[in-house]
C-alpha cells in the first residue's frame, strides 16, 4: 500500500487532496523509524486517544487497511476493505479531485 500511497500523494501535490491516516502502531520508537524509512509524509491521527475511544473502534473498523474516500464537501463517497486495486483507487480519487477543482 505505502509505495502507491506515496506516489498518489506526490502526484496530487498542490491539488485539493489530502491523505489522512489513522495509525494503530503501538511502539512509538519503532514507528518513528518506520515512518522515516518508508518516507511517510502524510499526516495521521493516533488511533489511541486519551479522552476518547480509539478512532478505529468509533468507526467500527474490523480489518486493516480500511479506506474511506471523502469528497471536498465532507461527504463519504466510497469505502474499501482490504485495499482496492491501485488503478481503481486512482480513478475514484482523481474523479473527486476534478469535481473539487471545478467547484472552486
Amino acid at each position: 500500500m505505502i509505495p502507491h500511497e506515496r506516489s498518489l500523494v506526490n502526484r496530487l501535490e498542490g491539488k485539493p487532496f489530502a491523505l489522512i491516516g489513522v495509525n494503530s502502531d503501538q511502539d512509538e520508537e519503532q514507528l518513528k523509524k518506520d515512518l522515516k524509512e518508508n518516507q511517510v509524509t502524510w499526516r495521521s491521527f493516533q488511533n489511541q486517544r486519551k479522552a476518547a475511544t480509539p478512532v478505529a473502534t468509533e468507526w467500527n473498523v474490523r480489518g486493516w487497511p480500511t479506506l474511506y474516500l471523502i469528497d471536498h464537501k465532507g461527504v463519504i463517497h466510497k469505502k474499501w476493505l482490504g485495499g482496492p486495486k491501485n488503478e481503481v483507487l486512482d480513478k475514484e480519487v482523481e474523479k473527486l479531485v476534478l469535481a473539487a477543482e471545478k467547484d472552486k
Partner: protein
Amino acid sequence: MIRLCSFVAVCLAAGLIALSPGGRADDRKKADPTKAAKADPTKELAAVEKDWAAAQAAFMKAYQEAKTGQERKQVLKEKRPKADSFAERCLKLAEAHPDSPAAIKALFWVLANAGNSDASKKATATLKDSLVARSDLDQLHATLSGVSAYSLAELAPDVAEKVQKHLDHPKAPALLVWVCSATVYGPTPALSKLYNQTVDLLMDKFTDRKELLPLCSLLAMDEDPAWAEKHLRTLYAKNPNDDIRRSAKFSLASVLKNKDAASQPEAEKLFQSVIEELGKNAAKNPIVQQAQAELDDMKVRGLGRPAPEIAGNDLDGKAFKLSDYKGKVVLLDFWGFW
C-alpha cells in the same frame, strides 16, 4: 480474488500475542532418516508435528519476552523456527510409505508450513502425481475435504483440469468450490485467473447446487465488487437453498454498502430482510447481530452521508481535526506498520 495486504499482518500479530507460551524447543530430536523409514508413518508424522509445536512455542515465548519493537523485529527475524528440517522429515516419510494416508498428510504439512521452498516444490510434484493424477473424483473429494485449501493452491490447476473432464460427476461442484477456496488469495496471477474462471464455471453450470455456499462469503470481499455483485445477485435469485440465498443476500448487502450512495437503500433493505428472515427471537444470532451492526454503521458512516468528525492528535502529538481538511478530497486510511 481477495487482496490480503495487511489483513494478514494483523491476524499474524494478533495470533502471536494470543497464543500462550510453551516450553523451549530442544535440538536433540534430530531426525534419523533410517529410523523414520522404518517407523510407523502415522507416529512419525505425529512426532514431527509435536516437535514443530514445541519450536513454535519457544519462538512465541521469545516474542512475548521481547520488550521493544526493535527486539520483536529481531526475534521475528532470527528466532522464527525454520520449517526446512521438519519438511525434510515429512518428505522422507512420504517417500518411505508412498501408499500410506499419512504420506499425503505429511505432504500437506509441508505445503502448509514450508511454502515456497524446495521441499514444497517436491511435495507439490509428488501430490500432483500420487494424489491428483491417480485418484478418482470420489477419492480426491474425500482427501481434500476438511483440509485447509489455501496452502494447496498449487494443486488447484490439476484438480480443476481433472474435474473439468468429469463435470457430470456428483462431486464435481464440491471439488470446483475447493479449487475456488484454494485460489481465492491468488497468490499468482495464473491462480487468480483460475479462481475467476472456476467461479464463472460454477455459476454457469451449477447455479442451483447447495455446494455453492462457501462462494457467498468468498465473493463478499472480492477486489472486483461489480463481478461479485453479479454472481451474488444470481445466487440470491436462483439458488433453491435457503442458507445459500440468505448468505448471498448478506454478502450482496455488504458489497452494495461499500459500492456507492445510490446503492444504500437496497443494502439497507437486504440487511433488514436478513434480520426479518431469521426472526425476532434470533437477536443473539451472530448473523442478526452483524446485520444490525451494519445497519447502525450505515446510518452514521454510510456512503452519501457527511463524514463524522474525528478529533485527535497526529503522530507528533499535535491536535487536529478531520474537518480541518474540508474543501479537499480526503482519503482516510486506517493503517499501521505492525
